[in-house]
């Protein structure tokens, strides 16, 4: 396959970037999208040019490191697929592909396709600890968890924090990410003691980071490689409003 890629090139956070056009020959349909970029980078290095910087780690769809906007879709627009799991067979010979970094005020571009997702880490940090005993392992079944709650908590906990929700959202909102993180602890008994302060602090941090607000359009959930449901945003709203109305206190 022969492919033309229009890649966002930006030297560093301070300089202005631009789209640069590259031709990539000898692309196998079995390559992943990142492997196609690897091939392009080898060509650039051979020509003495600077390789395109992009984030990646596990390349098996579970770490959340990779992620670029491909032809206008975060992670390329396939259902439940990260950029590393997107294969070139989903493109046609001669296709022109536009590749851009996540765009959000809270995710400044560091270089080329790499953005700083530290805002997500700060939201997690704002959530604080849970009151789980450390030391020897607890007795099995000492804390019963309803099957439905466990399933739902696990659905939320699947979030890998890749940032596709922010990238796909027309408002660059981080509500789906925050909803997933608030819900997966909020649904479990171990997460109850700090449930109210956690949601208040995480939402306050989310707003401080400069993400936009949620208008319930649903593009986040559609772009999410882990298919985190939009209903978690409803749950986050419920938790936040409840915590606010009770003054963040767990005692009446």
């Amino acid at each position, binding site marked *: 396959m022969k492919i033309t890629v229009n890649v966002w090139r930006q030297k560093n956070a301070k300089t202005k970037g631009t789209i640069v056009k590259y031709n990539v020959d000898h692309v196998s349909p079995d390559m992943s999208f990142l492997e196609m970029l690897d091939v392009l980078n080898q060509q650039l290095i051979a020509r003495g040019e600077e390789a395109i910087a992009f984030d990646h780690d596990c390349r098996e769809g579970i770490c959340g490191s990779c992620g670029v906007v491909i032809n206008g*879709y975060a992670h390329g627009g396939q259902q439940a697929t990260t950029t590393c799991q997107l294969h070139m067979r989903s493109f046609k010979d001669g296709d022109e592909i536009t590749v*851009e970094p996540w765009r959000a005020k809270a995710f400044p571009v560091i270089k080329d396709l790499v953005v700083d997702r530290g805002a997500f880490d700060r939201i997690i940090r704002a959530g604080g600890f849970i009151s789980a005993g450390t030391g020897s392992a607890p007795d099995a079944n000492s804390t019963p968890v309803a099957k439905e709650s466990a399933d739902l908590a696990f659905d939320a906990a699947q979030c890998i924090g890749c940032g596709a929700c922010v990238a796909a959202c027309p408002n660059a909102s981080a509500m789906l990410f925050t909803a997933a993180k608030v819900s997966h602890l909020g649904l479990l008994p171990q997460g109850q003691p700090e449930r109210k302060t956690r949601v*208040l602090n995480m939402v306050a941090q989310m707003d401080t980071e400069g993400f936009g607000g949620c208008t319930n*359009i649903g593009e986040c959930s559609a772009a999410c490689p882990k298919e985190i449901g939009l209903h978690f945003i*409803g749950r986050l709203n419920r938790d*936040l409003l409840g915590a*606010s109305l009770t*003054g963040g206190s767990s005692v009446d």
Partner: protein
Amino acid sequence: MAAALTLYRSTIGKKAIMALSGIIWYGFVIVHMIGNFKIFEGAEAFNKYSHFLREVGYPAVPEGTILWVIRIVLLVSLVMHVLMAIQLTRLDVSGRPVAYKKKRTKQASFASMTLRYGGLAILFFVVYHLLHFTTGAAHPDFEYGNPYNNVVIGFTAQPLTAVFYIVAVAALGTHLYHGVWSALQTLGLNNRRSDKLFRGVALLSGVVLFLGFAMVPVSVLLGIVK
């Protein structure tokens, strides 16, 4: 106190205000639409209903009290709704300072993507509508206390106005199709089980209110109401 501040400062708190004020107006437009249907019972019934709205509650309270309480509640709701919309829109726009060269959506509805513009159209319409049928300033031949004639003359003398009304209520229907569901989601009332029901309620609201409101100008244009 810290929690109350978080609520006001947070995007979610602002959206909750947006949702509550929207639901007040949602209730109003339903009652308004049902009231409009009195026009099909003839001039006497319609004018009597209009008069009833002015004196409802009398003699328990002075004439016009209830009317003005409702007007003030609606005005405050409208101001809050628009104010929150402006604040949130500014936040949303500032959330992405550098635009994508190429951006596409996967599933976003037309209604959800145009909610703000639809809201602007409705706001413009509300102002015009008050000048047209309440104060009469934008009406060619306004007669105080005779709303039936005002409606018929308002639409037959200027058929373009009737077309504008139909377009405006289409914008209202579209706004509600996303807005009603979104308000329920924002208030945290939605969950996996209720989602289909709430989306259904929103769709039904949009369609019924559009058809219900459009019926009046269409009937006048067709000569059914004259």
